[in-house]
């Protein structure tokens, strides 16, 4: 295992210490919990946004804490949902009396732990609502299963619901807007290499030198199938072929695009993917309103990428354009 760490048992604590040291002007760590909150929290009169999940997806979620996005990011162990206590500590630290919206990625563990935390906070008389992000079209949608996973599309929920909260919208309204994003956002990813959870010490799966995994989850959950490595154009065509018909995204639509690196893929390759995505969108008559290319929701050092589309309307456009100032996401 080739990692620049000290001890697998304390990677999350040390990471958060390093993050707080770097971004002390924007965020602070809650003592006794792996929770990063916006500096000056709770922000008076504002609905609070809390998200989180397992660690190993940096900059998600602590990197999105700050003006115009999250009030708190809760960091679980690597690839493991945080505990209810941690989420509860986050809610307590940021709730200003206007209520808190929990942004939950759709994993059994996250759902249960965040729900338990919400119950704890409600028992304290706090107002808590939640929204579940499930943008990964690689997973068959079915009421009989855990349903689709939440992946990089979550960042658009943070951005847009965050902007709504920042301008003073009510909890009900912030939740409505977050749900609108969820309804309009779809993603799919693929991986060229596995990654290694520090505490496990070995890769979470194996791929032959000429293989890639299509529909990969961000915790190394196997995808829809394996395939020989193909040119970027073919990979993008396959992923877009699954994403486009899903909402669906059609001629005349305006979208925001996110090309998300999973950790080990160079920016060069992400831009090459973006160019292919743009070509398809242009061919389909879909207008790209904004594009984000970079590492937004990673899987440790996994090589691979995901593509996210968000269908926009005037309301979402306005909120997407709003300023944000967080460790990992700046916009003016």
């Amino acid at each position, binding site marked *: 295992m080739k990692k620049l760490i000290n001890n697998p048992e304390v990677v999350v604590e040390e990471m958060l210490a390093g993050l707080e040291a770097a971004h002390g002007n924007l965020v602070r760590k809650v003592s006794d919990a792996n929770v990063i909150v916006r500096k000056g929290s709770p922000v008076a009169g504002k609905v609070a946004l809390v998200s989180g999940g*397992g660690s190993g997806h940096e900059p998600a979620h602590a990197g999105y804490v700050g003006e115009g996005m999250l009030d708190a990011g809760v960091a*679980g*162990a*690597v*690839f*493991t*949902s*945080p*505990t*209810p*206590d*941690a989420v509860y500590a986050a809610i307590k630290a940021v709730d200003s009396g206007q209520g808190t919206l929990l942004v939950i990625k759709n*994993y*059994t*563990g996250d759902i*249960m*732990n965040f729900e*338990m935390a919400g119950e704890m906070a409600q028992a304290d008389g706090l107002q808590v609502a939640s929204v579940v992000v499930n943008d990964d079209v*690689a*997973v*068959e949608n079915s009421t*009989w*299963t*855990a349903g689709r*996973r939440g992946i990089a599309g979550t960042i658009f929920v943070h951005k847009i619901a965050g902007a709504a909260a920042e301008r003073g919208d009510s909890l009900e309204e912030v939740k409505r807007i977050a749900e609108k994003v969820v309804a309009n956002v779809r993603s799919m990813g693929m991986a060229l290499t596995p990654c290694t*959870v520090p*505490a*496990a010490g070995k890769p*979470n*799966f194996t791929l032959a030198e000429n293989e890639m995994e299509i529909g990969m*989850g961000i*915790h*190394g*959950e*196997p995808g829809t199938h394996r395939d020989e490595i193909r040119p970027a154009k073919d990979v993008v065509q396959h992923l877009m072929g699954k994403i486009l018909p899903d909402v669906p995204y059609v001629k005349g639509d305006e979208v925001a695009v996110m090309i998300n690196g999973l950790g080990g893929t160079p920016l060069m390759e992400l831009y090459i993917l973006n160019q292919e995505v743009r070509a398809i969108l242009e061919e389909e008559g879909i207008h790209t309103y904004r594009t984000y290319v970079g590492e937004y929701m990673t899987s440790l050092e996994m090589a691979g990428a995901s593509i996210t589309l968000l269908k926009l309307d005037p309301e979402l456009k306005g909120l997407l354009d709003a300023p944000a100032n967080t460790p990992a996401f700046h916009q003016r």
Partner: protein
Amino acid sequence: MNTARLTELILNLGQVIEQNRDYLTDLDRAIGDADHGINMTKGFRAVADKLQAVAPADPAAAMKTVGMTLISTVGGASGPLYGTAFLRAAAAVAGKADLGRDDLLTVVEAALGGIKERGKAELGDKTIVDALQPAAEAIRTGLQSGAPTAEVARRAAAAARKGAEGTKEYAARKGRASYLGERSIGHQDPGATSTTLMLEALASFLEG
């Protein structure tokens, strides 16, 4: 079973989990995210520390400590599930100084109820339920048959193992493995396996 014996049993469960840390993690690597053994080991280590620190007053307090500790240290799916199970088990025998033969069923049924409520899984969804529900049934019939308690526990463990092994036959419909659809077939469920290991440890403990 008094508080001291129960505490000993719980420490025992933790050891068995820790011995099977890599095995459980490997099962989870195939159809999940390769951490079930890591998560459970972490949780039971914290449980051992906590039990030492608090010295619970009665069996219910001991089980409540286990439940609270698992919930607050494990995270993931297994933390709230097993945590809820122990909390419910504790509630079901509240106030008792000693657990008797019939409490075995009370405790296991309460645990199963908690897991089903929290996780919304049914038999055949390829989860903990697929080991714990047959075990609960085996305990009910075993107790009715008049078999010795240790023997009943052994039958429960066997039923759990059969249930856990049976999970290989079908696809997951709950938890992370459900994303795999048909590709989860052929793999044994990690959570059903950790449940089985704990029930086997219980049987050995009652026998030994």
